[in-house]
């Protein structure tokens, strides 16, 4: 802790901050245990009306076996971060700066054919709508087996047996018969199990799960989260869990990245971010979630809406909605600073720290 503080003055650059950070709060570094490292990632969209910066210098990392949640409201850039990592940015979106490293290897500049070998083999993806991520014209068995045979040195029949094992592991009853069914013959929850089996088929190092339970009912949602947690722990896969539901993060993730308007507002251990949020946006976000444990007459609300990409305010992007806005926030953009075991991009906390010293 004091170590962190001493280093605070050196530089705002994430690398230096990391040097001071203890083992539990990893930022982008060349730490070999990190499965995924995202360093200063920026994504731009070139449009007729100019260039829009949708992601602005986003840095975080995920260690093997770790579940990192990415939360934020619609348009915060959380799905875009996922798409950039998987290499599925839709043009005109493009990575305009920064690096993405998978197990120490740079993957953001790989040509399509090499990236295709990584997707499925090293990175598995789970999307929100299970129906659109499965091909309606093939049986689920065919789709899973195809993934296995493409990426692993197995014959079709060996692959099929493995597919059956995977379906059993995801809790699909009578997997041996169900494997020859088409996606439309499964219910929503069962379909999402198939998608999870598909994502895990080649034992990837990293799973990118983009809103995996949003389309499901609460009782099914609980089942799927348990399953995802269990399987990833068994395989030791790193998981990037993108969701807008703080409850899902609270139950699943080890650390959480809070995004706002294409930037990271706060990174920290889930417990810290939930119980002692530092960034005013995180404070507002946590307060706006209704709870069944206490009754409040009015929820905390954050007035206004997230800015559009073409009108992100100068300085801190959150300044027009912030209840604790200062003059500095309107002019200078805050970088991520280490604060305890969290990192926060807010002038409020750098000011406080200076005063303490």
């Amino acid at each position, binding site marked *: 802790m004091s170590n962190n503080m001493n280093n605070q003055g050196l530089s705002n650059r994430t690398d230096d901050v990391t040097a001071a950070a203890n083992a539990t709060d990893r930022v982008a570094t060349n730490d070999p245990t990190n499965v995924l490292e995202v360093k200063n990632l920026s994504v731009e969209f070139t449009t007729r009306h100019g260039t829009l910066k949708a992601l602005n210098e986003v840095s975080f990392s995920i260690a093997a076996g770790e579940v990192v949640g990415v939360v934020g*409201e*619609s348009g915060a850039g959380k799905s875009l971060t996922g798409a950039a990592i998987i290499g599925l940015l839709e043009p005109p979106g493009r990575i305009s700066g920064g690096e993405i490293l998978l197990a120490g290897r740079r993957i953001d500049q790989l040509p399509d054919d090499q990236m295709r070998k990584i997707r499925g083999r090293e990175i598995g993806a789970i999307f929100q709508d299970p129906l659109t991520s499965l091909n309606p014209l093939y049986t689920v068995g065919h789709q899973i087996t195809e993934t296995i045979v493409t990426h692993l040195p197995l014959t079709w029949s060996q692959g099929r047996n493995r597919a059956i094992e995977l379906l059993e592991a995801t809790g699909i009853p009578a997997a041996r018969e169900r494997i020859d069914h088409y996606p439309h013959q499964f*219910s929503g*929850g*069962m379909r999402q199990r198939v998608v999870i089996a598909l994502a895990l088929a080649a034992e990837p190092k990293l799973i990118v799960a983009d809103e995996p339970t949003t389309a499901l*009912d*609460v*009782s*099914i*949602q*609980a*089942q799927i*989260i*348990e399953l995802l947690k269990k399987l990833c722990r068994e395989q030791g896969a790193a998981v990037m869990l993108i969701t*807008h*539901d*703080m*409850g*899902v993060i*609270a*139950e699943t993730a080890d650390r959480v990245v809070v995004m706002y308007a294409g930037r990271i507002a706060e990174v920290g251990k*889930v*417990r810290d971010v*939930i119980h002692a949020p530092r960034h005013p946006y995180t404070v*507002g*976000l*946590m*307060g*706006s*979630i*209704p*709870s*069944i*444990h206490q*009754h*409040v*007459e*009015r*929820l*905390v*609300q*954050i*007035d206004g*809406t997230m800015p559009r990409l073409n009108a992100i305010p100068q300085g801190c992007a959150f300044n027009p909605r912030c209840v604790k806005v200062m003059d500095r926030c309107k002019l200078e953009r805050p970088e991520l600073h280490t604060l305890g075991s969290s990192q926060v991009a807010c002038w409020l906390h750098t000011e406080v720290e200076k005063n303490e010293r």
Partner: protein
Amino acid sequence: MNADRVDNERASDAVLASRQATLVPEQRPLIEVNNAARWFDVSSPWLERVIARKPRTVLRAVDGVSFSIRKGETLALVGESGCGKSTIARMLVGLYPLTHGSITFDGQPLSNMQGRKGLALRKRLQMIFQDPYASLNPRWRVGRIIAEPMLAHTQLSEAERDERVSALLTQVGLHPTDQSRYPHQFSGGQRQRISIARALAVNPEFLVCDEPTSALDVSVQAQVLNIMKDLQRRLGLTYLFISHNLAVVHHVADRVGVMYLGRIVEIADRDALFTTPQHPYTRLLLAAIPDLTGQGKSRTPVAGEVPNPLNPPSGCTFHPRCPHAREQCKAEAPVMQNFKGIQVACHGVVQGWEMG
């Protein structure tokens, strides 16, 4: 015409005043739903049926529900997709006629709502829909959207309508100049406010809100829920609030009804339902809520899914998923009974089985 309008205005002022006087929920029910059902015929076409000798198939979306809502109260209905909660919403505003049973509003049967003579009744209940992208006409300006109910139900002049639209927009936290813009120029939360302004345009007493915040981000959801609560307090509104999100329901509701496969399985006051849930399905739903406080706690994942409503299980429709099901549950459908001040439809609860 002019005098008529003044009368109308005065009448609605009086209604407003009397409603404001009774902010505490009254005992007299405003809405009474008695064994109401809505079945849908989903059979294949006649010829196919005759050739394949298939019987008619009837989907019992809502199969005999009874509840009442007192004036100034919020009743929430929760349940998973396909349990019939949206069908009830549509039945209550008269969008679906009933297959059997009855619904009365302030003592009048809802079947009186059709035609010209039902106009006065229709004015008193309005609906807010789930998807603010689909429920606003993209080719109309916001002012026209909000003024439309006034055209149907009041004789206000154009200037008066404009004035009221401005007042309504201010009331829901938008700006009066927003009325000259189109829906696509607004965000999801702002659109839902426009829907609320439209629903309030004719001073209704009862609002049916079908998942009004499900399509919104949490911070925006908080804005909309706060506005809805403020308006309820100020205008003495009665809400039927439909949601699948139990935390939202806990925030807004006075009483909560839990639905499963077209039936209500438990109705209780909010605090009773959340602290001492009785029906096994209610317990399942409560256990499935992601918990912000207990990190890493393992939820008791309940096996199974909602069965196909076309072919519901015998007896109590929840028995295949119920951890406490016995032979009686498979054979005999439980009826709603009063039990310790709540209403519950479960053999086990009423007979005091050990259910841990």
